[in-house]
């Protein structure tokens, strides 16, 4: 049984492309991509057990984390950088997203939507932090330190001048539903969101900006 979000990622990724899976766990998705899409796959995983499992599957996975190790990849090393259910657990989500789109042409990012009605209901009605299917752990055990709503995420993509190529929503074990993320209703009903993002091309005709003055008195 393939996870629904993995199924959607399999659909999005071009065969034979170069893929980095950040937070690849035991390599289930990378394995699928390698076998079904013949990708040149690499992974980054924080746990030694996960990396060891990946290595015994024959995957090229490096022990490391999204916050520290993306910086070492050269620009545009990959066609896709995948960050599945991990963005909300990073220390610097904004920097991580920026880095994903530096090292890859496209970023595939999924995260639990904190604007989902069950989350809102839990806070409104019970006054307690939500424990839902997408957010199963109590507040004191969760690795999620930077939760956001669909609307928050959209604001960040605008801020970073990132283009949204596609967006799908998942609820429970149901299939992916293509959505227009700008519709307010989706911020209520999408339990998990999966975005494919790319950099906005530089506006045509705009000359390369001269470097900003450094403020150094002795500069030039």
């Amino acid at each position, binding site marked *: 049984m393939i996870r629904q979000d993995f199924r959607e990622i399999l659909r999005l990724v071009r065969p034979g492309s170069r893929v980095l899976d950040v937070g690849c766990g035991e390599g289930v998705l990378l394995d699928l991509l390698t076998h079904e899409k013949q990708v*040149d796959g*690499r992974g980054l995983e924080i746990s*030694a057990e996960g*990396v*060891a499992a*990946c*290595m*015994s*599957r*024959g*995957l*090229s*996975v*490096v*022990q*490391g984390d999204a916050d520290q*190790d993306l910086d*070492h*990849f*050269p620009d545009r*090393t990959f066609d896709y950088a995948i960050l599945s259910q991990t963005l909300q657990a990073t220390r610097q989500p904004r920097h991580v997203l920026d880095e994903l789109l530096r090292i890859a042409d496209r970023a595939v990012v999924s995260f639990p939507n904190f604007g989902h009605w069950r989350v809102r209901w839990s806070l409104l009605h019970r006054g307690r932090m939500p424990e839902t299917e997408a957010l199963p752990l109590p507040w004191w055990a969760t690795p999620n330190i930077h939760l956001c709503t669909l609307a928050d995420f959209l604001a960040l993509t605008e801020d970073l001048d990132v283009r949204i190529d596609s967006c799908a929503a998942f609820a429970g074990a149901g299939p992916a539903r293509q959505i227009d993320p700008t519709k307010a209703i989706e911020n209520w009903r999408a339990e998990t969101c999966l975005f494919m993002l790319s950099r906005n091309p530089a506006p045509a005709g705009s000359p390369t900006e001269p470097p900003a003055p450094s403020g150094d008195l002795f500069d030039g």
Partner: protein
Amino acid sequence: MAELDFAGQVLSEGGTWRFPAHSPLLLDSGGKLENLEIAYRTWGTLNEDGTNAVLICHALSLDQHVAGVHPTSGKPGWWTRLVGPGKPVDPARHFVICSNVIGGCGGSTGPASINPATGQPYGLSFPVITIADMVRAQAMLIEALGVETLLAVIGGSMGGMQVQQWAADYPDKMFSAVIVASASRHSAQNIAFHEVGRQAIMADPDWKNGAYAQGKSRPEKGLAVARMAAHITYLSEPALQRKFGRELQRDGLSWGFDADFQVESYLRHQGASFVDRFDANSYLYITRAMDYFDLAAGHGGVLAQAFAGARHVRFCVLSFTSDWLYPTAENRHIVRALTAAGCRAAFVEIESDKGHDAFLLDEPVMDSALQGFLSSVERERGLAK
């Protein structure tokens, strides 16, 4: 055991390969070595496509007897966890090669060999060698054995330095690389410990400025102390504590300087048994080669540049949590350079309290990681399904 004198001779299970006459090994120091000999062993046979050769590079105090039985000590090879029937490197599938490094004392030309110019043992007239010199000699041996491309080059510690040097100097001759518990350069602490060892040897009156071969005694005390100090760096504080604690050799203290504690007795034994199998001058030369190792230095100070030609090579790097000689940070430094160079690398830090020596010991996670890596390399090379 057969001896090979020229390229293309029938493969044997090992022996001594002599560099062709008038073809000296040119050294990084600017010097050269004439009539060089390399002692090596092989297991298995090279397949028709020449795609199944695996080179194992040994560490400082080891030799070419990686598997099987050591001919003089009668002990099992030093990496039988990796090499042997049913192991990740299996003579039934692979053509395994391991050679003694130049400067060593396992049969390859080293400071104890006869200098053809004088008819006397080299001693300190042996030129200072580098890791790159060792690898250059290995590359010539590989060629003489009829191997064009190595399926894998594998090594731990100083062996891992050779693997990195292979990737920098001969990337087109290799398909994959395994670097275990190693570093791309020696740290100040690494050099410091080696200097203690060298000073212990050179302070031994029997060392005689390196010319002890002509006399009756060898600098055994100095070499033993060097080994004792080094051995501590191969272990970890918890491993020593677990193994020995403050346990005594006998009931009560001696109120003197006998080996009261078990750890003292253990180290003395390590030192004493080492002098039976190792040459003091070789120890000086090989530790020097390791101290001089700084792979980035020859590439504009940028390690990634050293690996720029190795983008097609698959890398596996392993480190151990309690290894303070070649700690995870040093191994990660290699991995980051590989990443920056655009190489395909796998890396894991293995939980172990056994220190640097863990790479030679019972570490199931290492076994399964190497098994997985090498199987996938074989699949990619078309050797297995």
